[in-house]
């Protein structure tokens, strides 16, 4: 039962990912991507990593992807954008990326082929994750926080001038 759930979720994840990356409409692609992420969250949960599963939903699906939707809504390219995307997705353009990705997949399959181990079947509870995170990994946490701070400042700086504030006090100037 659980095994079949696992393989089902894997199939959903794969199919949704493929679908996500071949859509012309960004919103549709995002919905597929979210489905894929939820499927991966199920995989995490089944492998005994409930904390990672929850975070995958809360942070990945619930926050990061919302940002994507937000930007798509802000840009709101509409049908024109979709048709152009469709044009860019012509079968001819698939050849090189397809071949390269195929070779990579082949190589990866060759590389992981000899892993005879099973997953342990032990659930790693959030408390243990937390203790390890703030124990041996505390320096990495600091670095990650620094990275996030950098991301924050960078995003603020880069995104700041997207909305040009009109100066309403000077009616003649509409630049």
């Amino acid at each position, binding site marked *: 039962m*659980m*095994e079949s759930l696992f*393989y089902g979720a*894997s199939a959903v994840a*794969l199919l949704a*990912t493929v679908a*996500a*990356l071949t859509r012309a409409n*960004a919103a549709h*692609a*995002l919905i597929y*991507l979210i489905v*894929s992420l939820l499927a*991966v969250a199920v*995989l*995490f949960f*089944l*492998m*005994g*990593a409930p904390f990672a599963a929850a*975070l*995958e939903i809360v*942070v990945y699906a619930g926050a*990061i992807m919302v*940002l*994507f939707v937000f*930007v798509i809504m802000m*840009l709101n390219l509409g049908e024109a954008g979709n048709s152009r*995307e469709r044009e*860019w997705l012509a079968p001819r*353009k698939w050849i090189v*990326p397809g071949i390269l*990705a*195929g070779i*990579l*997949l082949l190589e990866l*399959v060759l590389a*992981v*082929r000899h*892993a*005879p*181990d*099973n*997953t*342990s*079947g*032990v*659930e790693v509870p959030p408390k243990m*994750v937390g203790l390890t*995170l703030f124990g041996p990994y505390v320096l*990495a946490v600091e670095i*990650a926080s620094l990275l*996030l701070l950098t*991301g924050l400042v*960078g*995003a*603020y700086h*880069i*995104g700041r*001038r997207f909305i040009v504030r009109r100066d309403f006090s000077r009616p003649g100037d509409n630049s």
Partner: protein
Amino acid sequence: MGGLQIPLEHVLLIASCLFSCGLAGLMLRRNLIFMLMSLEVMLNSAALAFVAAGARWGQPDGQIIFLFILSIAAAEVAVGLGLVLQIQRRFKTLDMDQANRLRG
């Protein structure tokens, strides 16, 4: 509820497939938003591999690396989407083949 015992190979295989898909998407798509999405897929597949490895040993380290990947993804998306907005404003397109000059 305990975890599931499945061959590690299978999980890694799924992660490889996801990674290849993401990579193909990255090479295929010209729209910056889709490229960012492909990057997310790749990061996510790497996270899957890490969590699988953590599950193999029953240790929290895999999940911790997942957390770091999560923070990297968050930072990357924040900056990346900021760039999307800027590029759209300056070039009036998200086609990365056209936005190829250093100075906008």
